[in-house]
């Protein structure tokens, strides 16, 4: 199949069916939320969801990881709480007259495989307290900019990563 984008990846693999349906359902729900539940909006919604799903499958083929809903819910809850902590932390430092900052770079070794799951983790990391990932470091390291290098950053990140890994169903070699 050669689409207008000049892509050659076939979409007839049976293993692709489940992630394809999952994405189509997710995008369909997003359409419902954006456009409302009016019956006349359902047909274009289906077209839009299918188009977006097709593009999504072309650009991001389903990987080996599979999302586990129960762990994901737990992770999301904790993540939201952590991002509140992050906002409060920044506000406290910004408004403190003494400006208590110890900015610096820290290298963090990740057990996540390079690629989408690692990028997803670093994306979420920039919403966690005190950390903004700034790029890859030698080996499997990630360079992290911290507002306060005196905090136990790597231990905290390791805890977050363990939760994230279990949410996306990724088994780490070193436990």
């Amino acid at each position: 199949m050669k689409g207008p984008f000049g892509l050659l990846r076939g979409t007839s693999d049976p293993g692709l069916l489940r992630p394809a349906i999952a994405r189509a359902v997710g995008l369909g729900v997003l359409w419902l939320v954006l456009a409302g539940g009016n019956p006349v909006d359902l047909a274009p919604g289906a077209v839009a969801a299918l188009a977006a799903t097709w593009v999504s499958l072309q650009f991001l083929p389903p990987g080996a990881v599979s999302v586990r809903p129960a762990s994901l819910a737990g992770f999301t809850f904790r993540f939201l709480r952590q991002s509140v902590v992050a906002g409060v932390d920044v506000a406290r430092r910004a408004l403190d007259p003494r400006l208590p900052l110890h900015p610096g770079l820290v290298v963090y070794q990740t057990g996540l495989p390079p690629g989408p799951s690692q990028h997803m983790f670093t994306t979420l990391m920039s919403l966690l307290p005190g950390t903004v990932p700034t790029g890859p470091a030698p080996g499997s390291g990630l360079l992290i900019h911290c507002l306060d290098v005196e905090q136990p950053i790597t231990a905290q990140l390791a805890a977050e990563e363990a939760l994230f890994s279990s949410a996306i169903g990724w088994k780490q070699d070193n436990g």
Partner: protein
Amino acid sequence: MRFALDALTIFAVAAGAFFFLAGTVGLLRFPDALSRVHALTKADNLGLGLIVVGLLFQTEGLLAGLKLVAVWLLALLAGAAVTQLIARIAQAGGPRV
């Protein structure tokens, strides 16, 4: 009931506005570009989230409320993803700490 919902809205929106204030103060006070990235992403995103929560008490209908949440999630995830790109330039261009 109306009064209670309004009170919740006022509380959450005011808290959201406070975090926008904190974010801007951080933006003005923090010494280097990468630290300012922290101030912007974390404080402002929480501010937007709290304002959305506040507005949820005023919206009518589930879908209208979910739409506000969807806008917030989009701003949150898109912002967080782009933040790493910005941080990368700071890392490449700025002095190493």
